[in-house]
């Protein structure tokens, strides 16, 4: 195993508490395939955050070992900015320019989803490629 990698066994309290958190979130789905998929997706996300190297990892804080350094805070700020801009743009587009488009949801909800997606995509781009 690479010395650069974070060893998961050193972060069991973090992993167990996040697994419980994911279970609570996915409880809404009930014992369905979608529920299991959402649970695995959330757990995978928590493991990815720990091993990605995007956050400062402090082994002395086993329950909350992840924190953003200055570059992470900058990436988060940029992501928030772009999410608000793109979310508002999507909302305005669906509300005023393409009101006849059948989205299956409201323009506000679609704008919110675009904003959320933009937040994670932009943050991923800045943390991984800049």
């Amino acid at each position, binding site marked *: 195993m690479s*010395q*650069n*990698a*974070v060893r998961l066994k050193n972060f069991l309290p973090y992993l167990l508490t996040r697994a419980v958190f994911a279970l609570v979130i996915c409880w809404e789905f009930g014992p369905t395939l979608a529920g299991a998929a959402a649970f695995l997706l959330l757990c995978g996300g928590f493991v990815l955050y720990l091993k*990605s*190297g*995007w*956050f*400062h*990892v*402090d*082994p002395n804080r086993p329950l909350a070992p992840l924190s*953003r*350094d*200055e*570059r*992470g805070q900058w990436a988060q700020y940029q992501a928030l900015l772009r999410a608000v801009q793109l979310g508002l743009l999507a909302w305005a587009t669906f509300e005023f320019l393409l009101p006849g488009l059948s989205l299956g949801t409201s323009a506000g909800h679609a704008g919110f989803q675009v904003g959320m997606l933009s937040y994670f995509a932009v943050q991923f781009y800045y*943390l*991984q490629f*800049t």
Partner: protein
Amino acid sequence: MSSPLDISQDIKHTLLVTIRHDIRAERRSRGWTQQQLAERVGLARQSIIALEKGRFDPTLETALRLAAVFDRTVDDLFQLEEE
């Protein structure tokens, strides 16, 4: 007295300056991994990678931390380089 043209030349001159360092060589000379250096200075591992590749200029606080963990001065670690 400087003319406006001189001032604009000064600004242009200032903008064409980059920060030069060799953090990678310092780290390797101590046998540390990027993860170990990241834990020592309180940065993420990807930030160390970006720093070593010259894609990320650290704040003064981080520069001081890096100097402290390498037992060097900031002047030893970082130099301004005109392009």
